[in-house]
């Protein structure tokens, strides 16, 4: 609550900070004695792409699961467009938050088109009787759904593979399909969990374009990623999560320049200036190696690594 003001201050780069779409306050998630997420505040405004980074095990995905109703936060609350989110993940989707998964979770034995049609589930109402009786309403709804799904496939570039089985798509296209499926639920906020994991540079760039295009459709995006270049190119704002707590939040430059972030990723700083210290270490090691080369060969490997010397 108090941090609310600070987060708003740290968004100078946002072109037109619209209304708040997602507002997470003091989200805490404990599993028994382990606190995976501890009092994290995060807001996402409409038309914004927000990045969430942090080392492995920092609690990013757990935080995502709290936002999407897969977990119920132990403390704190999550509001979507001012409404407290329901505790069931399908209701969260109906409310307007869609997500993708870190490890792709497509419906592997359904066709590409069917996958997207499943995404339309919350935006259609036809039940069992309507399916059996097949009135005109059913055909209309089905046609609209198919049309809409094909548009989305067109949007992500998979329209020509609509009748393929999802499992037969190459990896990068499976990621795209997951995004298309999430978009089919007509969300106001899209959560992407490592959308470029395992992609080559071209695919990563294509994904970047795709995310911008999604933002241009007026959908706010919250993205977890380890690819720093991707994150800093893409995001209007980046939050850093370390050991379940939010370390910093701000635009790319702020986060990139923050020592604590570097420390969190690369380990504890040495003295004052880790970069210089390291360089000095390496120089010293090289000098030592040169001098001792004649005497003993097998010590070189031990002295080479800068960190090893600290012990």
């Amino acid at each position, binding site marked *: 609550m108090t941090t609310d003001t600070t987060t708003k201050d740290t968004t100078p780069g946002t072109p037109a900070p619209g209304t708040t779409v997602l507002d997470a306050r003091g989200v805490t998630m404990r599993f028994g004695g382990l606190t995976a997420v501890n009092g994290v505040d995060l807001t996402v405004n409409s038309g914004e792409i927000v990045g969430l980074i942090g080392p492995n095990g920092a609690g990013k995905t757990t935080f995502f699961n709290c936002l999407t109703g897969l977990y119920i936060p132990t403390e704190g609350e999550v509001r979507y467009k001012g409404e407290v989110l329901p505790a069931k993940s*399908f209701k969260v*989707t109906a409310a307007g938050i869609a997500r993708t998964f870190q490890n792709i979770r497509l*419906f592997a034995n359904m066709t590409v088109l069917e996958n997207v049609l*499943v995404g339309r589930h919350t935006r259609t109402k036809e039940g069992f009787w309507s399916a059996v009786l097949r009135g005109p309403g059913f055909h209309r709804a089905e046609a609209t759904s198919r049309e809409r799904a094909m548009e989305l496939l067109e949007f992500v570039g998979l329209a020509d593979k609509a009748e393929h*089985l999802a499992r037969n798509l190459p990896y990068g296209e499976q990621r795209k399909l997951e995004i298309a499926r999430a978009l089919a639920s007509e969300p106001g906020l899209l959560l992407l969990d490592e959308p470029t994991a395992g992609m080559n540079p071209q695919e990563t760039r294509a994904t970047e374009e795709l995310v911008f295009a999604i933002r241009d459709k007026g959908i706010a995006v919250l993205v977890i990623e380890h690819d720093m270049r991707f994150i800093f190119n893409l995001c209007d704002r980046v939050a850093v999560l370390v050991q379940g707590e939010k370390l910093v939040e701000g635009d790319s430059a702020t986060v990139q320049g923050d020592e604590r972030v570097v420390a969190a990723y690369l380990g504890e700083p040495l003295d004052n200036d880790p970069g210089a210290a390291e360089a000095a270490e390496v120089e010293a090691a090289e000098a030592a190696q040169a001098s001792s080369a004649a005497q003993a060969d097998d010590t070189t490997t031990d002295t080479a690594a800068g960190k090893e010397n600290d012990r």
Partner: protein
Amino acid sequence: MTTQTTTPKTAGTPTAGDTSGLIGMPPHIGRALATGGGALTVASTFLAWTWTAEFPGDLTVYGYPGGLQVLVLIAGALTTLFGLASYGVRGLRRLVPAGGDAALKFAALAAFATTWYTMIAISAQLGGLVNLEPGGYIAAAVTLIALLGALALPFERPAPDPFDPEDTGWEQFKHTSSQNWQTIRAAFTSSSPRPVPALPSYAEILIIVGILAVALLVFTYGIGTEYDELFVGFLIVAGLGFTALHRAGLIAQATEITARHQNITVCGAFIAAACFPFTQSDDQYATLGVYILIFATVALGLNIVVGLAGLLDLGYVAFLGVGAYAASMVSGSPSSPFDLHLPFWAAVLVGAAASLVFGVLIGAPTLRLRGDYLAIVTLGFGEIFRITANNLDGTSGPDVTNGSNGISSIPDLDILGFDMGIAHDIGGFTIGRFANYFFLMLLITAVVVLVFRRSGDSRIGRAWVAIREDETAALAMGINGFRVKLIAFAVGASLAGLAGTVQAHVTYTVTPEQYLFAGTTPPNSAFLLAAVVLGGMGTIAGPLIGAALLFLIPNKLQFLDDYQLFAFGLALVLLMRFRPEGLVANRRRKLEFHEEAEAPTTLSKTGA
């Protein structure tokens, strides 16, 4: 650890790309032998095979094939046709869109197996080879020649996989045997078939009619087989003959054509099924027909629960029981606690509604479980139903179901003045009691097929499949998993209840012991599930065929007796080993289980 540094024994065997046959014989001679052998097989069936009519089927007549000879005749004719087609005879080439060699091998194998089975059966039954007439020896010889000739046909050998010299003798043995197995498999496979040339739609519809007529003929023949030997021969010829047609590529082409005219195929199949009672002179086999239909309909209902929604239900037969009990109680039976005689339409509604309620009551608490746990709990509820029905007898509990005596003397149905209990004459055909019920049951089956097809290809059906594929992702897509699963459970339950209402009238009596988890006679929960898995999950034809087979085989093979369940288990193990997707493969499942096979990646139609 015998470090055998011997040179690989495969030195003498042919290398990859080599296209010799399994038997060292010049291919052209092999082809000639196979084709000629096929023709001679046809001729030999017109001879007498044995001297006495003691062996069933009367194989003693010259110039007129009987019993098993007819089956051999068919297999021989197939062999000849495929042999001629593999020569490239004009007009016959259409028969083998995927190449004739593999088909020829299977057809020759069918003729050989049936003939030799007959010879062995005659010798064993009548005591010695002396009972064979010269005609029998000739048939045995020509089918053997045809088979050897067919096996000499060239095929694409798989590349030999050199084994690790470090391997132990046992590992080498395993390696070589798997290598040999691969080679044998390769000998019997064929390339993928040519696509069907565009035909005018009336021609395609005529083809569909022809296919359905053949299917009806095969089914009628199978159901009407009078003795064990004939049924075994029928199974051999039907199984291997079907495989031969499949290898020839005809089945794939037929599937393509039927897929183009789905509605016509479905309607045609029902008309063909409705023709079945007219092919029968008495009610003897219509009885089997109606029991098969009940079994198949319930299996199809289970297919919604298991095949589409992926919920393993081991107590499904209880819903059939609920429907049957509900219908029997309002049927005016003297042992029913209610003095009520509702018309059939009302009884159907009552039966379906009772099953629906029961399904929701069981489903609501159990569907929070996933996978194996759900299976265990449903198994338990199935037993609870049976035991409860047993105990509601007036002594252990209130008198509702009349305990283990069940509700008996259920009167026959009378629909709009049409008494189902007596025989009627329709257009010169006598339609008996069971045939009447056959028609009624066919109507119920049609309803179930309709519900299955329509719900499967809709928002709710996609939600079911999504839940089956990945429940977490489905929830994240906004699907209310519990609700959707409950709908699947309730729909499946009420469809079974629908079948139960007819079953009660067909069997006259409803007792708890008809609704076991596992027993020797279908329908019971284990057989229902087996029919679905055996036939092919998620398809319409699969459970129908699976149920027909599972009903007919124990019914026809009386000699199996005590080994029935053993044979059943063995068959299931073998099937799951070699064809895990079931007899009728959902195209989706086929891709799932045989990824190495060339993947026709596009699917034109959802589901079945």
